[in-house]
């Protein structure tokens, strides 16, 4: 219940945060704190320094920038849900945020924290993959951008290097003819996914011109069901084709066994969530 001792630093700007990160070994960023602080209270994490970035205004805000939506890394889940821009132009993020944790946690939990914390149970990474999001990252060497696809390397292992801070997430505006689906199977409100699948697809007439199928919490990190995507891309997606894709979705999984279920159940559920999300995405793409 009681965290170990640490030194606390409130960063006033992004550059200040980066400077503090490089000045202190064994430092962790305090964003929403609802992944980190519970770990510290159980003493699973005992950083010597916490760098609080809640006061950095540059990290807040959602803007529409042409075909791109720019989301400050410290945007909370509730702010995502309330955003008119997202509701209109990227409703997948809204749907996903609604199923994260509970109302109080959503007031503190941030898209940035959830996207780069590295826990396979975090909800946003698979959504980032499905959206083909871009991460804007700043470090001592300056700013860079990295695609979400390829960013997730393993459990608590991402493309974020030592001393770097995620400042912004960029997602594309959903165009006409594009649709999304999001289905998350969980034991109860506040639980991580037993399996979840965000899907984004585009239709060209009846043919699927592009599709991305993300999978949450059924592998060491968020993954895409790429073989399933390859089967569906360029085809008219029928129920029969979805059924052919299902085993390919299952094959993309390598879940940890826990009280949510064994590997057999989780892989089957990943496929079922993907099925439902594909159907939902199709319906939305057509409307």
């Amino acid at each position, binding site marked *: *219940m*009681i965290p170990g001792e640490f030194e606390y630093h409130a960063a006033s700007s992004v550059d200040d945060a980066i400077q503090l990160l490089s000045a202190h070994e064994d430092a962790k960023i305090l964003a929403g704190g609802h992944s980190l602080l519970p770990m510290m209270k159980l003493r699973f994490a005992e950083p010597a320094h916490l760098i609080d970035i809640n006061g950095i205004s540059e990290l807040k805000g959602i803007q529409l920038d042409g075909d791109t939506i720019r989301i400050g890394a410290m945007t909370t889940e509730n702010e995502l849900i309330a955003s008119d821009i997202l509701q209109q132009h990227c409703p997948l993020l809204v749907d996903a945020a609604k199923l994260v944790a509970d109302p109080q946690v959503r007031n503190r939990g941030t898209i940035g924290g959830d996207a780069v914390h590295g826990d396979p149970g975090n909800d946003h990474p698979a959504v980032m993959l499905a959206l083909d999001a871009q991460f804007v990252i700043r470090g001592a060497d300056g700013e860079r951008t990295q695609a979400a696809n390829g960013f997730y390397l393993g459990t608590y292992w991402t493309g974020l290097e030592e001393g770097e801070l995620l400042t912004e997430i960029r997602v594309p505006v959903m165009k006409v003819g594009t649709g999304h689906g999001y289905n998350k199977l969980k034991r*109860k*409100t506040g639980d991580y996914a*037993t399996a979840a699948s965000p899907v984004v697809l585009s239709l060209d007439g009846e043919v699927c011109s592009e599709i991305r199928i993300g999978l949450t919490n059924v592998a060491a990190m968020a993954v895409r069901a790429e073989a399933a995507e390859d089967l569906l891309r360029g085809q008219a997606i029928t129920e029969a084709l979805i059924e052919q894709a299902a085993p390919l979705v299952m094959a993309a999984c390598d879940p940890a066994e826990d009280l949510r279920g064994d590997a057999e*159940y989780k892989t089957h559920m990943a496929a079922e969530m993907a099925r439902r999300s594909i159907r939902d995405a199709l319906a939305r793409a057509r409307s």
Partner: protein
Amino acid sequence: MATAAEEMNRQDALQGIGCSRKRKEDPRFVQGKGNYVDDVKLPGMLFADMVRSPYAHARVKSINKEKALALPGVHAVLTADDLKPLNLHWMPTLAGDVQAVLADEKVHMQYQEVAVVVADDRYIAADAVDLVEVEYEPLPVLVDPHKALDPDAPILREDVQDKDTVGQGPRKHPNHIFTWEVGDEEATDRAFEDAEVTVSQEMYYPRVHPSPLETCGCVASFDKVQGNLTVYITSQAPHVVRTVVTLISGIPESKVRIISPDIGGGFGNKVGVYPGYVTAIVASIVLGRPVKWIEDRMEHLSTTAWARDYWMTGELAADKDGRIKGLRVNVLADHGAFNSHAQPTKWPAGFFSIVTGSYDIPDAYVKVDGVYTNKSPGGVAYRCSFRVTEAVYLIERTLDVLAQKLGIDKAEIRRRNFVKPEQFPYQTVLGWELDSGDYHTALDKVLAAVDYDGLRKEQEEKRARGELMGIGLVTFTEVVGAGPSKSCDILGVGMFDSAEIRVHPTGSVIARMGTITQGQGHETTYAQIVASELGLSSEDIQIEEGDTDTAPYGLGTYGSRSTPVGAAATAVAARKIRAKAQKIAAHLMEVSENDLEWDIDRFKVKGVPGQEKTMKEVAWAAYNNVPEGMEMGLEAVDYYDPPNFTYPFGTYLCVVDIDKFTGQVHVRRFYALDDCGTRINPMIIEGQIHGGLNEGFAVAMGQELPYDEEGNLLGNTFMDYFIPTFVETPHWETDYTVTPSPHHPLGAKGVAESPHVGSIPCFTAAIVDAFSHLGVTHMDMPHSSYRVWQQLHALGLDKHG
């Protein structure tokens, strides 16, 4: 002349029995002014925290306190060696066994208490816990109760291995605790041999934990100057705790004060005495300062009283019309490392023998074997009425299995076997006397309310379309109100309960009972009873419980015993007062006692309108104008030893729809009809039903605390342990009938555990019913979507296209 309207006004003004009046305790709770144990702050108070074993079974080779003691702000680090001179390193349990207070050379379960640190504040105490160095030598672990009695099983309890009993009869193996048998085995075996049809069903009732939102804790304060010990404690049985503290510490009861203040939920979790309490008391005595111990949630789920863990086999013998001829039950009970579960002394399996249920069964035999394993101790808790949860689960499930085998409708088979109204009071073949009941009426009412025939028709149609819909029906009889002292005692103290009532000169009242509310609304319901008995408004009746310095001795609140026993004591005490008041009223009006009749709130002279004295007027007179030879004052105390238990009953029906691709179960409807006899406050009863149903839903649908092979406890945080939120919880429909208890002064039976006892098998029944057309007779809990999916996947129901 009083009109009907005037009489109604006087009746309403009392806000007495039957009135859904608002609760008197609410104003402080809604303003954050409750007084829970962790709210208690005493000058100089220190904080205790526990060092706990990571191993399930190990020798403790050494404990190094040095670093912990060197941390500034740490006052003491105590181990078993420090408790030995006081003979407090072990303590007696409520079940006749002993339990280690701090590990004495050996740990028997993961998270067992090994040392306690005491520091200035909880932050320093937490740091100090990390600094205590303990060396363990792991031993082979036993977690499978089925292997506990193997010849080569590791011996867990070396401390009792040479004892041929641990308080519950002879034992046959070092890991064996007891064998309990009831019923006529031979006659039952004959019934099975002769039967036209028999069924047998194995079923497991998993280990679950009541998990009230407030964890356990205490503030122990020993006053060195006066030699008094005061303990604020989360206890459902403060007087029992006081007696136990005296027995183990030697401090006389007159110098021990136990205070159960506001308690944030009990559900049977807060009955026993935990090592944390004992070590806080010892630390306070040693240091001469108050010591607070509050456990966290993981400690709570891992070490305090949990429930069930019964491996049961139910067998029924019947004729081809489904009339039961015999019931045979075998149970393997996993008690964990110590037999510490709350029970009346002579009942090692609680009231499990109520397992004949609502049915007229001519022959029955029950055998329960209890064993030790390397797990936390317990078994009785969680709204179980002392194992009635297990008993009702067994009979309701097995009866459904019989119904399925014979192709008889599940409601019809119950009707054919019910104890009939004219058979009450009914002697069950296993020794219970059911006081009153009308099972047929309750069943018919529910079936009509839900259009049962319509539901069965709908189920047929859905089945034809390959959809899974289930209807669960449970008709349970509960046994509560422990209990008659000739059969029920806790550590030798008979299970009576008590009430002490005093009327003040100006007509308001203070009353104290030996029970202790943990949310059941006693400050309101007891006031309502006194109001109706004495004709004084419940607004002016102050109810207190929980302070052993002022409350008369009681056995506490668990097993739904407050209404059957405490309310009976309250009514009887009030009637003693009214009897005295009648004499005073007669004296005031210069008539004979026998000329008076009681009317709502006053004594009236029979046949002489206008000649009357209200109880208020009598109260004033009691302090200045009483008959010759009578002492002043207007009060009474009653210690009520119930002549029998009470037997609330109910009919519950549940409708579920199952997603055949994920295994998710949607509870479409839950209809709960309860009969608890006289209803004191219908609003409070309904609230209890909602709460019990929700806890039953949690147990049936997701709660479990499994151990792995190494004895590691899994799922012991709220991340995994299923506490339903607003979102998962179904809508509850409640209904009632009223069949008073013939032996209770108010005809009331108690109700708060019925919804838990009855709902759990009802959820299982509904889910199994969804698969019954495919030959499924039983599915073990919890009915998580994972486990339900495994069943439907095995049947090939989740194929698409």
